[in-house]
């Protein structure tokens, strides 16, 4: 069932993704008590100013929302084929082999295409600053490199947020759903959404009622643009030759009409506007 390579991934978009499955988070909504320890730990870890807000902002990278009597964490899903990584014109966003989608604020020029394109509506912007950058969860990429779990998972008192290898987390999620039939919706959110994500969620409430997007196709959105972009080199060649051909024919026709046919007619190239 598990595939190390995502079918249809634009080649070369995620370095090392062909061999590594990476780390991730599993959020079990049935175990979350809404204490907000994850959000506070995140603020501290990433030195984000201000109080934890109810919605994600450039300064609140994760938050717990209450929907339909259940607590749901909001944070970057860390897609396997991230839309934000594909759309960033300056490659400020990258997917690391360990799992996190990280952001290089030094490269970003603030076009906000990532915000527009993200199917989960995660990247947020510093609207109040004259020199703004994007803010979003980076799955504690620095801690992961040191072999430590994310700050939110470490802070969680109930185990609602689990950190681990993605394949282990999927196994765990499936076990929980199977062992208590009826206690969970029979779906792991993030397994297929937008091509699959490193952060996954299970719940006893339908995901659309938790405010999560459930209309996301399993094909990564990045494929839709890549199908167009990958054809550009071919297109340039064919279209260029075609255009020159049109010019060649029409100019030749004019030469012939003038009666100046001497068998070779590339003389027309020199005619400019007079």
């Amino acid at each position, binding site marked *: 069932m598990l595939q190390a390579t995502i079918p249809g991934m634009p080649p070369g978009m995620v370095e090392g993704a062909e061999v590594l499955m990476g780390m991730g988070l599993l959020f079990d909504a049935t175990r979350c008590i809404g204490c907000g320890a994850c959000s506070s730990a995140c603020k501290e870890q990433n030195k984000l100013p201000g109080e934890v807000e109810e919605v994600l902002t450039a300064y609140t990278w994760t938050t717990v929302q209450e929907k339909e009597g259940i607590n749901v964490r909001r944070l970057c899903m860390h897609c396997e084929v991230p839309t934000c990584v594909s*759309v*960033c014109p*300056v490659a400020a966003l990258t997917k690391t082999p360990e799992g996190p989608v990280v952001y290089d604020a030094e490269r970003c*020029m603030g076009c906000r295409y990532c915000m527009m394109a993200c199917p989960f509506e995660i990247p947020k912007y510093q609207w*109040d600053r004259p020199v*703004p950058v994007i803010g979003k969860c980076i799955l504690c990429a620095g801690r992961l490199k040191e072999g430590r779990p994310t700050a939110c998972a470490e802070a969680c008192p109930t185990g609602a947020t689990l950190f681990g290898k993605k394949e282990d987390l999927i196994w765990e999620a499936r076990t929980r759903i199977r062992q208590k039939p009826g206690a969970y919706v029979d779906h792991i959110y993030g397994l297929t959404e937008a091509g699959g994500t490193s952060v996954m969620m299970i719940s006893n409430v339908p995901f659309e009622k938790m405010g999560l997007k459930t209309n996301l196709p399993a094909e990564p959105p990045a494929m839709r643009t890549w199908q167009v972009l990958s054809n550009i080199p071919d297109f*340039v060649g064919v*279209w*260029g030759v075609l255009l020159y051909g049109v010019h060649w024919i*029409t100019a030749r026709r004019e030469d012939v009409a003038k009666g100046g046919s001497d068998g070779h007619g590339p003389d027309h190239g020199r005619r400019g506007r007079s």
Partner: protein
Amino acid sequence: MNTTATLSPRRFRPGFWTAVFVVLFLAFCTVTVIRFTKGLGAVTNLSDQFPWGLWIGFDLLCGVGLAAGAFTLTAVVHLFNLKRFEPIVRPTILTGFLGYAFVIVALLLDLGQPWRIWHAIVYWNPHSVMFEVAWCVMLYTTVLAIEFSPVVLERFGFHAPARLIHRLITPLVILGVLLSTLHQSSLGSLYLIVPSKLHPLWYSPMMPLHFYISAIGAGIGMVILESYLSKRAFHRHLEMDLLEPLARGMVVALGIYGLMRLQGIARNHAFASILDFGYEGQMFLLEFTLGVILPVALMSFHRLRSHPDWLVGGAFLAVLGFVMNRLNVSITGMEAASGTRYLPSGMEIIVSVGLVATGMAVFAFAVRTFSIFPEGPVTGSRRPEEGG
């Protein structure tokens, strides 16, 4: 009309329109200062839910699209060899160049850190449509500047470099058409990435083609409109013998585009959302009836095409429909998924209007200084700021 006897040629007399322009320009400068000291949040109605607004929907998408007349006409004249259209090439290239300059200035305001715009040249991401658009816009603006440069060079007596550019015109035009084809369609590709967000009345895998063909149609409409405004402002005649056949081209482009749009809606099974007559359905009907069906129907009649008023009216509808389409794709169609409503702020509108006015003022200055029209520099006009 002959009051210019006491004036030297090209003498500029400020009037009502000059005053309007100066006020708009000062307002534009004020907003720019606030934007760069207080951030985008202080001047725009943009938010985390709605990160792209008027400056992308109108300034970028319409600025580039309505400049499409330049590549269309240069292709008609230099590649299809229809030399009789030559007299309107220069004003069209100028309009095109000003359109792209307009886009670049707007982008500098919209980008969070515009001083990093060169990053797109250094840090590559070939998976990004935006990356491709950035390169094409950059290169094509250069091509337009080179195509226009003989006008300036001749004015100052540099005939040798002007002749060199004349000799290179064919490869230049081909390059221009290639780059235009790529980025005009790519503005549509920008929205391919949001299948779950853009309303099915507008989303289609064929959006790149929709954007390309509608830009050709509206670009031609813009050539006609620009001729009309020049006629009004500089007391020129309308080149009906050239504009009438151009309107035929416009009908063909808009007709193909209209059919493709209907096909896309059928594919998405979205006709129901028109019949619902909801917000999106109404906006679509307005856009499609006014901007596609009506101009195609009217301009199909030779009698109407040959009448200056009807011709200009048809061109205006095509341009209006184009602007409505781009605003619907970038704003109307994205609102439902974002869970919020977006209306541009007064300051956002000031920037867009101020930039259009500046473009018109530069156009008016250029036609007075250079030989843009076949009869040479315009002299003694009484309504300076109305061209463009």
